[in-house]
C-alpha cells in the first residue's frame, strides 16, 4: 500500500451547520495500479485529490504515504519528493519551453536525479510523445494534448511513485483522451507507478484497474 486515506472529513462551516464535502472517507491505493475516482461535478472528487496531493488539509482524518502521515512528512516536502500532480488546465509556465517546464521540478525535488537533467527531460518528453523540436517550443505554441503530455512529463520528472491527476482529459478530444489514458496505464503497469485519476467519464473509469464512486462526499467501489 503506497497511499492510504483514513476517516477524512472536509466541510465548510455554514452558520451553525457543517456542509460536508467529504465525510469519513477512507481509501487505500497500491503501486502498479491505475485507479479512477468517478463523480459528478460538486461530488467532492477534486477536494479528495487535493487532500491526497497535500494541496489542502482535512479537518480530521489522515493521509499516509508509505504508512507515514503526510503531515509528519510535511506537505511541501511531500509534494516536492513523493507525488506528481497533473491538472485539468495543464498549469504549465507559459514563458518557458516544454523542456524548461519539465526541468523546474527537477531543480526543486530532493530526490536523486541524474546529473544531466536536460537529457532526462528530453527523454521523458520523448517517452510521452513530445519530440525534440516540440520540446524546445514555448508551451503556449503546443496543442492541448501536447501540453497535457508535457504536464505528465513534468509529474514524472522527479521520479515519484505516485501520480495524481485531476480531470486530465477534460479539455481534450476523444482521440487525445485515449492517448493520455494509455500513457497512464503504461505508467502503472510497466513502470510500477500508482496512478490515481479523478474523472467524471465512465469510459475512463472502465479502463482503470479499480474505480471508486464518490457521491455526496461518500466514497464507494464502482462496479
Amino acid at each position, binding site marked *: 500500500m503506497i497511499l492510504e486515506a483514513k476517516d477524512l472529513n472536509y466541510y465548510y462551516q455554514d452558520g451553525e451547520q457543517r456542509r460536508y464535502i467529504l465525510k469519513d472517507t477512507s481509501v487505500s491505493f497500491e503501486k502498479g495500479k491505475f485507479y479512477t475516482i468517478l463523480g459528478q461535478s460538486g461530488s467532492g472528487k477534486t477536494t479528495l485529490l487535493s487532500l491526497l496531493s497535500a494541496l489542502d488539509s482535512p479537518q480530521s482524518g489522515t493521509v499516509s504515504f508509505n504508512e507515514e502521515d503526510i503531515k509528519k512528512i510535511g506537505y511541501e516536502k511531500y*509534494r516536492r519528493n513523493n507525488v506528481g500532480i497533473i491538472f485539468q488546465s495543464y498549469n504549465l509556465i*507559459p514563458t518557458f519551453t516544454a523542456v524548461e517546464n519539465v526541468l523546474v521540478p527537477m*531543480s526543486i525535488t530532493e530526490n536523486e536525479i541524474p546529473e544531466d537533467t536536460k537529457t532526462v527531460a528530453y527523454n521523458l518528453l520523448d517517452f510521452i510523445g513530445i519530440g525534440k523540436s516540440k520540446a524546445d517550443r514555448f508551451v503556449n505554441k503546443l496543442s492541448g494534448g501536447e501540453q497535457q503530455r508535457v504536464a505528465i512529463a513534468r509529474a514524472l520528472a522527479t521520479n515519484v511513485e505516485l501520480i495524481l491527476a485531476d480531470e486530465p482529459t477534460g479539455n481534450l478530444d476523444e482521440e487525445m483522451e485515449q492517448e493520455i489514458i494509455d500513457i497512464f496505464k503504461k505508467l502503472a503497469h510497466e513502470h510500477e507507478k500508482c496512478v490515481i485519476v479523478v474523472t467524471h467519464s465512465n469510459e475512463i473509469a472502465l479502463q482503470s484497474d479499480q474505480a471508486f464512486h464518490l457521491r455526496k462526499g461518500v466514497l464507494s467501489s464502482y462496479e
Partner: protein
Amino acid sequence: MNFIKRGFLGITRKKGKSLILLAVIFILGNLISGAFSIQQATGNVEKNIKERLGAAATVELDQEELNALSEADWEGVEIENIGVDLIKQIGELSYVKYYDYSMSTNLGSESIESYQGEGMEDQVVMTGPSMDYRLKGINYAPVIDFEEQKGKLVDGRVFTQEEVDNGTSVAIISKKLAEKNNLQVGDTFTLTNAVYTYDDKTGEEELANSRDVVLEVIGLFEPQSIKEDQGESSDGGMFDWMDIEYQNTVYVPNEIIVSETKFNMEEYMKADAEFAAAMEGEEQTFEYYTPMFVLNNPEDSAAFEEEVTPLLPEFYTVINASDQYDSIAGPMKSMSNLSKYVLIAAVIATLLITGLVVLLFLRDRKRELGIYLSLGERRSRVVGQILIEVMVVAVIGITLSLFSGNLLAGQVSDTMMKADSNTSDEGIIYYSEIQQTNLTTEDVLDSYEVNLNSSYILGFYGIGLLTMLISTVIPLIYIVRLNPKKILM
C-alpha cells in the same frame, strides 16, 4: 532551472514588464539620485567651509543679548571681565588643543613707515595722529596665528616663555614691514605711545604726552590665509585693508601692552581732570583679554560651547569660527533643506509606486507562483526568485539614474544658486579675530560641486537598493499567503 535561473529568465522572457519596471525605477531613481547628489554636495560644502573657517573659538559679550536689554534693564547691570583664571580653566578642557589670551592696542611711530599696500603708498592720505601699528599681545609663546597658518614665521624665532612672562621688549613683525624699513632680525625699532586729548570746542586733538617703545625684532612673518584668499579672489589687485592691517601687526608679549595701556590711561587722566574725576574711586584694571581657544576638531564646537557656557559670567557667549558658516551659507542651506524634502518624498513615492507595480505584476503571475508552490517549492525560494527579478532590474535602473540624476542635480542646483545669489547680500566680508579667513557667500557657492565620488555612489546605491528591497518585500507577503489549491484547481 533553480530559482536564480528562473529569476533571470523571468526578466528576459517578460521584456515588456521588465522595461516598464525599469522605466519606473529609472524615473524615481533620478529623483532620489538628484536629491541625494545635492544633499551630498551641500554637506561637503559645509564640511569644507567649516574646516576653512577653522576650529577656533572665543568668548565675547553677547551683543544680541545686550541690544535686547531695555533702558530700565541696563540700570544696575554690571559686566564682569573675563579673568585669566577662567580662561585657563576653559583652556584645560579636553576639546582644546591650545589657547591664548591677548590684549591689543594701536601705536604710531615717527621712525618707521607703515606698510600701505603694493604701489598704493602715494594714494593713501592719512589725517590725524598715525596709529598704524597694531600691537597684538601673546601669552602662548609659539604664537597661535602661526600654528594655525594665519601667518608663517619666515625668519628668526618665536617668543620664549621667559620673554612672555617677563614682558621683554621683543617683537615679531611682518616681512614686508621689515623690508620697507630695512629692519632685520636683531635690529630694534621704535614705536610711540602718544596720549592725545580732544578739545570739544575746537574739535582738535592735542598731544598731552608720549613715550617711546623700543622693540627688538626677533622674527619675521608672512601672512598665509589672506594671501591665498587674495590669489583666489576675483577682484584681483583690489586694495585689501585686512592684508594691510595684518602686515602692520606687531606681535609682542601681553605685558608690554598692559604697561602701555596703563601709561596711556594714567597720562590721559593727568591731562583731563574731568575724566580723572569721573574715574575716581573706580577700580582700575588695565587687563582686558580676548581669549582664543583652538579646538582639536571643528566638530567639537557644539560640545565645547555646551560645556563652556555655564562657566561664563552673565552676558558672555561662546563664538565659534564655524558660526560664520550660518551667515554666509543662505543659498546652500535653502538648497540643502529643499533637497532633503525632495529626497524624503522621492523615497516614499518609490516605496509606494514600485510596491504597487510589483504587486500588480505578482497578481498577474499568480498562476505561475501557484505552480511553483504545487511542485513543492519553498516559499522562501519563490520570494527569492521575485527579489532577483526586481533587484536585477533595480540595479540597472539605479545605475542609469546614478549618472543622469547627478547631471540633473548639477543643472538644477546651478539654476537655484543663481536665483538665490541674486537675492542675497553681495560683497559683505565677514572677518573677526577668531576667523582665519575672509570667506564670502561667493566662496561658499564656488566650493559647491556636484560630482560622482565614492561616498555618493555607495550612499545612493544604499538608499536606492534598500528602498527597492522594502518596496518589493511588502508585496511579497502576497506570495506567502497564496494557496495553490485555490489558484490551480
